[in-house]
């Protein structure tokens, strides 16, 4: 999935081969806050002796105002070509400083910002002399790293302003409409011949009780409310947006290319009716001799081989069911069609779409309850699912809105609903499907309101009405006489003599066994992921969760994104959702997809990994460990392969670097030489009475915890030195051994929580490296306790301070480590 050669544009402009490093060091006392703790005279004096340092400036702040101007001047006038700034809040100050430096025409990656306040002065304020010595080591490390920094350029990747939406249900339609309104070319692909998905079958929605096929209309220019909202699908006009293409009977078979520029192959099955010619006159169905059970209508009636599934559909065009039609043997419909719309020789087509991103909106479906033997679904005809009941409740449906017993067509006067069928049951689906309680309440209410003399009972484990206004809905159902029995039915039996069903259930509240007689039993079945989810996930290269739904990148921060850039999710594809939530989700995915493509290009700093092909031995480890699928193996000479990193997909974490057994892959923004130079510098000055401890910390949670301990002035000893890396995943056992060799008496690895790693796998992988390194240390005669991994988050600054103290005490107790 690498960007094709020639497709990406590289801005060479500001990148020239660097002359000898002239480091300017800018020391901020943070508005005087730390001037009493650190001896700035001593620091300045020390820095002046460091090789390569051409300028040392002291000020009260360097990330804005005069201070920032001083940096710019130094770059412009004094030809400083490496900038080291000691500031606090480094992330924010770094943004301002790099921006200013870039404007001064120095590559922004030649800047190193360190935090001597929160990482040194504050936590060591009680031992100012020691703090000053540590600050020297930190500054030396920054200077040594800065000397080795190299410019990093930006690259542009093409972003096609076009989006593919998979799934023409409520979520897909709304996302497609949003994007088309915003001017993107949109392809809406639906596997069925008609749009609408599950929602369209459901007739009405809770809690608004409005029609399922009601959607918003396009709003590209300002229109009145009645013009734009609440329109039936077939008259909303969404299908008339010129840049929206609806492809029915279609599915995705292949996705190639890179985010921003995918090539998608769509397989389109024939409809056998020309969409442009059909006028939906219905003459064809009257002559069609083939009758098949109508699956759309829960097989409660039959339909012809040529059909529409209900009157108000989109597209309003008939379709031929290829499994039923007799084609040229019959061809009666061809004769009667007044517009010559029927084309029995249509073939399956393959279309290639060029899109910048993809939205998966494939929804969910009802679980097939026939596997649950005790409920005898499929065996007794009067046991139905909610969707089947919904078809009866549809005025256009097979029973014209009346509820009947499928076995004999007589009205159902006693109806029992069974909740959690296949949900919340370890045998089938452990999760709560979350919407079926409300569906039962909706259906019970609809029935009870339309046919008050019907006896309606709901057997439940818990009634889960967690949404806004949902509880009122429940109360109303109670008020109009729906009965509730707390208990999961053990069995549904059928009395053939009376053609009656009996639901055996223990009422848990009254502690008694009930046998509820029923004409109709409705199973509130679980909602499960769409049938082709796994296949589609493989084609798209995205993940499913343990329950088979599409997995989002992060439930809180990136709820509609996936780990693959440019691929988004919405609606029931991620979990069963009610219509309002699916809608919300769809709009969010549309915004994300639009944001990704709106500039027509993707600009990226090349802070990525690169492979040196002369050394890559094709062990094929890094493609597996990279959390973003950014590495592929490319043929190089007869029978040989080398790893290659996609500059677009790489996130620059360094997990691959921490994996590669030959050092063939490295980060452009943190080279091995820079790591070891910093390590040596940090351990070259002690200045405390305690043994040196090196903490290798990730730039994310690990560093945040260290920041927060400093900000909160939690103290820990100054012998603890922090080396920051992007992700702990980059840590190699070599680094740990080198640290001991360079004088560390203890080594801490500080990273995110194993499940909360910002780069997915880094923390877990390095945990394993650390464990194996401990076994190795033992073999080397070194106490394994000298090495420890800590998994922290931002709010655990106290835990970092404790860990630092603990490690110091531990290695003090172990005594000094004498290496040969």
């Amino acid at each position: 999935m690498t960007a094709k050669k020639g497709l990406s544009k590289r801005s060479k402009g500001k990148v020239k081969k660097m002359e000898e490093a002239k480091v300017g060091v800018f020391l901020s006392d943070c508005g005087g806050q730390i001037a009493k703790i650190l001896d700035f005279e001593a620091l300045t004096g020390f820095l002046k002796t460091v090789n390569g340092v051409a300028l040392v400036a002291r000020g009260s702040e360097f990330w804005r105002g005069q201070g920032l101007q001083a940096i710019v001047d130094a770059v412009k006038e004094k030809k400083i070509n490496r900038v080291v700034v000691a500031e606090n809040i480094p992330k924010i100050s770094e943004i301002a400083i790099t921006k200013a430096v870039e404007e001064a025409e120095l590559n922004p990656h030649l800047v190193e910002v360190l935090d001597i306040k929160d990482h040194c002065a504050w936590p060591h304020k009680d031992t100012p002399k020691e703090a000053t010595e540590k600050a020297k080591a930190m500054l030396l490390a920054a200077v040594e790293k800065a000397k080795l920094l190299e410019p990093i350029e930006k690259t542009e990747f093409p972003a096609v302003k076009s989006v593919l939406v998979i799934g023409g249900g409520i979520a897909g339609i709304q996302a497609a409409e949003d994007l088309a309104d915003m001017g993107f070319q949109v392809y809406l692909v639906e596997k069925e011949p008609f749009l609408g998905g599950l929602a369209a079958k459901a007739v009405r929605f809770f809690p608004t009780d409005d029609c399922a096929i009601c959607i918003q209309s396009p709003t590209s220019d300002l229109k009145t409310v009645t013009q734009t909202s609440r329109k039936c699908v077939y008259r909303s006009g969404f299908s008339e947006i010129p840049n929206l293409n609806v492809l029915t009977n279609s599915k995705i078979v292949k996705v190639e290319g890179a985010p921003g520029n995918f090539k998608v192959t769509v397989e389109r099955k024939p409809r056998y009716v020309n969409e442009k010619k059909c006028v939906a006159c219905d003459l064809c169905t009257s002559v069609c001799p083939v009758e098949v059970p109508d699956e759309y209508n829960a097989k409660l009636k039959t339909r012809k081989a040529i059909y529409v599934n209900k009157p108000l559909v989109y597209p309003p065009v008939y379709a031929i069911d290829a499994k039923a039609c007799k084609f040229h043997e019959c061809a009666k419909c061809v004769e009667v069609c007044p517009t010559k719309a029927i084309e029995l020789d249509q073939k399956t087509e393959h279309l290639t779409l060029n899109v910048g991103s993809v939205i998966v909106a494939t929804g969910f479906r009802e679980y097939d309850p026939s596997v649950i033997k005790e409920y005898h679904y499929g065996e007794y005809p009067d046991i139905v699912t909610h969707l089947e009941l919904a078809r009866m409740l549809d005025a256009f449906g097979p029973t014209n809105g009346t509820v009947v017993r499928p076995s004999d067509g007589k009205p159902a006067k006693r109806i029992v609903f069974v909740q959690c069928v296949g949900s919340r049951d370890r045998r089938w689906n452990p999760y709560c499907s979350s919407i079926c309680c409300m569906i039962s309440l909706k259906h019970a209410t609809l029935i009870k309101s339309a046919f008050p003399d019907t006896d309606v009972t709901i057997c439940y484990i818990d009634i889960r009405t967690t949404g806004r206004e949902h509880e009122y809905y429940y109360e109303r159902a109670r008020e109009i006489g729906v009965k509730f029995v707390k208990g999961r039915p053990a069995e549904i039996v059928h009395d053939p003599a009376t053609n009656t069903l009996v639901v055996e259930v223990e009422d848990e509240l009254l502690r008694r066994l009930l046998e509820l007689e029923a004409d109709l039993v409705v199973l509130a079945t679980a909602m499960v992921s769409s049938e082709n989810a796994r296949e589609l996930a493989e084609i798209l290269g995205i993940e499913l969760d343990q329950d088979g739904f599409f997995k989002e990148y992060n439930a809180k921060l990136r709820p509609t994104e996936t780990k693959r850039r440019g691929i988004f999710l919405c609606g029931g594809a991620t979990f069963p959702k009610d219509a309002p939530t699916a809608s919300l989700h769809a709009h969010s995915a549309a915004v994300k997809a639009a944001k990704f493509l709106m500039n027509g290009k993707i600009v990226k700093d090349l802070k990525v990994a690169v492979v040196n092909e002369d050394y890559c031995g094709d062990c094929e480890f890094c493609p597996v460990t990279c959390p973003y699928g950014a590495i592929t193996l490319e043929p190089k000479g007869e029978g040989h392969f080398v790893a290659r990193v996609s500059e677009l997909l790489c996130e620059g974490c360094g997990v691959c670097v921490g994996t590669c057994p030959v050092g063939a892959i490295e980060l452009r923004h943190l080279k091995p030489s820079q790591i070891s130079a910093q390590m040596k510098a940090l351990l070259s000055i002690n200045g405390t009475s305690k043994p040196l401890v090196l903490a290798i910390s990730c730039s994310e949670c690990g560093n945040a915890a260290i920041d927060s301990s400093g900000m909160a002035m939690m103290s820990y000893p100054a012998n603890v030195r922090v080396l920051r890396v992007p992700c702990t995943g980059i840590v190699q056992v070599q680094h740990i051994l080198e640290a001991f060799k360079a004088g560390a008496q203890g080594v801490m690895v500080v990273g995110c929580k194993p499940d909360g790693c910002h780069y997915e796998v880094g923390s877990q992988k390095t945990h394993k490296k650390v464990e194996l390194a401990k076994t190795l240390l033992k073999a080397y005669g070194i106490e394994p306790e000298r090495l420890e991994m800590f998994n922290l988050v931002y709010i655990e600054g106290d835990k970092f301070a404790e860990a630092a103290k603990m490690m110091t005490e531990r290695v003090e107790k172990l005594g000094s480590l004498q290496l040969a």
Partner: protein
Amino acid sequence: MEKPKKLKFAFYWAASCGGCEIAVLDINEKILDVIAKADIVFWPVAMDIKYKDVEAMPDKSIDVCFFNGAIRTEENEHMAKLLRQKAKVLVAFGSCACDGCVIGLGNLWNREKIFERAYFETPSTRNPQSVTPQTRFKVAQGELELPEFYDTVKTLAQTVDVDYFISGCPPPVPRIIEALDAILNGKLPPKGSSFLLNKSVCDECPREKKERKITQVKRIYEIEDDFKTCFLDQGVICMGPATRGGCGAQCLKANIPCTGCGGPTPRVSDQGAAMISAFASIATDPKVIEQVVDPVGTFYKYSLANSILRRRVVRE
């Protein structure tokens, strides 16, 4: 026209098993080219020349010295220094000279512990007078001096300046031939180069790489080898990924996993640690890590003496 002057070669063995000497002979008829273009002035395994003869040679009078074996004793060190002084080009030949090899595993102990084991504890030892090697020993004829046995095994490069390396246990014959060709034709690579390849053994291995996920560590007898799939994919630890290639993956071709004799690849300072990092990264579970019982024997069989820490910290 004057006949080109013949080169002067020396071969020496320090702490080694002798296999490297055999490898020199394994070049077969190539030895004739060598003899045609070079005189061998020193080769203890084959010629009777004394150390004092070498001492008498003018400095830099040997063109190329192939030095195999690690530096275990004072004698090894003395000869390394002497030959460095006498030779223009010094080649570390074989895994012992390059990385310490199995001799280097002695660094898991010190002299005292090794003597204790070798001269007292081994079941086959009878040593009623408790004799151990001494540097000085009085006999009727006078006092004998023996070279000191060091605590720590060193590689050749840790002892003297080395020009070229050719690792392997023993070095692969095709690479020896290439090295000799380069030397005989005066086409020497930059100082510090190795005559092995820059890539790892995996690059030459015919086995098929599959999932690259280790779910369980297995010993070779525990698998039913299909003779096709990469050993790691079958759960057997193979050092191929972290080992300098050039051997043509000969062990793999004989269905034996690589144990690492080529030593670390050029950009790596510690072969064992590099493989541990890689192995832990592709292990699916922390439990897999616990299944590694002998990390040094598994990952450092040939390179302990040339690793970052070089030896075990032995405490009394």
